[in-house]
């Protein structure tokens, strides 16, 4: 069974002549241990897809399920809980809390989610795998772009979600770093049994994907 599945999902913004169909009958699924790329140019509907898959907003029609459970009818509080427990986000600008150092970014998760987070040993292993063990006392503005991104990935994984959603994870990286990040996501998907969904328009990531979906004008088609 797919960890996450979207069936005939449509998202409409506005009404009347100002109506815009951001998603048109989108069908999608991802399994644990897989890296899935959602590719397409700006304005294709990738971000809207991400917000609906991550339960940040609801579709106008269609079904979104995580582990077979429909999430379109969840209350705001239930959606919040779902994001805290099942979905990890890595955002475009990494978006770490600016006044917390790396260690405190994880402590913040501990404050709101008391159980089910990575153990000390698991976190140490993850930080080693990401190569950021020495950065735990640093604040976001003391880190390079690549380091911030690794911290953002670690934070997203710290709550031990089943799904990792990344928004343009290579937007500001050079080819060498793209290769590292691509390998990292692949490794994380396999070693941590996560469904990793990368929304990107960067073709350099294609080689690390198990599946690739193309988006254009709100429509999604499976390429690989």
């Amino acid at each position, binding site marked *: 069974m797919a960890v996450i599945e979207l069936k005939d999902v449509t998202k409409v913004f506005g009404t009347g002549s100002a109506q815009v169909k951001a998603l048109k009958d989108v069908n999608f699924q991802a399994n644990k241990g897989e890296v899935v790329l959602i590719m397409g140019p700006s304005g294709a509907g990738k971000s809207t897809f991400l917000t609906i898959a991550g339960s*940040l*907003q609801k579709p106008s029609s269609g079904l979104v399920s995580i582990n077979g459970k429909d999430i379109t009818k969840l209350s705001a509080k239930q959606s919040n809980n779902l*994001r805290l427990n099942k979905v990890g*986000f890595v955002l*475009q600008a990494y978006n770490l809390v*600016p*006044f917390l150092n790396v260690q405190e970014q994880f402590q913040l998760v501990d404050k709101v989610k008391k159980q089910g987070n990575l153990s000390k040993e698991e976190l140490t292993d993850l930080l080693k795998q990401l190569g950021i063990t020495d950065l735990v006392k640093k*604040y976001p503005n003391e880190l390079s772009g690549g380091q911030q991104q690794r911290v953002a990935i670690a934070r997203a994984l710290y*709550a031990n979600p089943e799904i990792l959603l990344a928004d343009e994870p290579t937007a500001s990286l050079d080819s060498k770093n793209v290769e590292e990040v691509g390998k990292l996501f692949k490794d994380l998907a396999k070693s941590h049994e996560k469904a990793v969904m990368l929304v990107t328009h960067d073709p350099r990531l294609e080689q690390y994907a198990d599946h690739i979906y193309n988006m254009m004008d709100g429509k999604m088609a499976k390429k690989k």
Partner: protein
Amino acid sequence: MFLAIKEIKREKLRYGLIILMIFLVSYLIFMLSSLAVGLASENTQAIKSWNTQEVVLNKNANVSMNQSTLTKTDLKKADIGSNEALVGENAVVAKHKKRPSVSSQFLGVKKSQFIYKNLELVSGKKATKNNEVTVDQDFKVKGYKIGDKLELNGSKKKYKIVGFVKNAKINIAPIIYGSMTTWKKLRQGMPDVQASAIISRTNGYKYNHGNAKTYPVKQFIQKLPGHTAQNMTFELMIGFLFVISLIIIAVFLYILTMQKMHNFAVMRAQGIPSKTLVGATISQSIILVAVGVILGLIVMWITAMLLPAAVPMSFTPSIMIIGSVGMLLTGIIGSLIPIRSILKVDPAKAIGE
């Protein structure tokens, strides 16, 4: 609390400036409150030290003891028990060749009555003769000593200071306690006058005869010259300071919240509940106000210690408690204003930015 403390620690300058402003406002509130209480106390110190409940005055004196005269006829049927005392009041200027002149209130009292009996001596003894007086310790602060001889209102007769007493001020002027005979001499030309007032410490005491009329102490105090106007002025200033601090806290927190909206959206996207963010904002406000108020209390305490005794300032525990609680409540109310914006944060805004 976690987010609140971490952010304040990280953004020391920003939050330091807010704390500085809250400190200044709270310091000003404590200062004005202390002055208000100090001045009010100097207006009524003696009246309160007598434990006054009712005051009998001439009904035509506009509730002013200084203007009141009670004659033999007025006092004919008065029941003067152990809880009542006759008082004769007269404004005087006390002079001594080597000391500064002091505008004072001469109070003639009877040795057999409770006001004289309950005088709280700081040093010396109570006046027993007509040429002796016991004066408020304010005289001591101004350099007067036991044995000094005073001229009252330029009289040739001199009155020897035999003791200093505390809590002896009325209408912000220090009291000179002397005998009724001396008071009558000072109040020349009214041979039939026996006293200015009857002070009673019995609640509900009533004596209305001739021109005598009984007033409750509250009404008597309100009618003290300048007392109500002075208190209302201070209350208005303190009230405005609370409103100003409310605006400062609310505006600053609102601006800070608006600047953090993207962070809030990101945290909400990551599943951090709104209540955590709201709690952080409120606790941040409480921490800022608490630190500012504590600093205000410390500096105010030092100020009160350093100010000369002539400044009528009374920094009491009740001012500390009421001022601090008032500021904390103001801070909490101020922090509630940006909460609506926090609750309305759309986590979807974190994507694609």
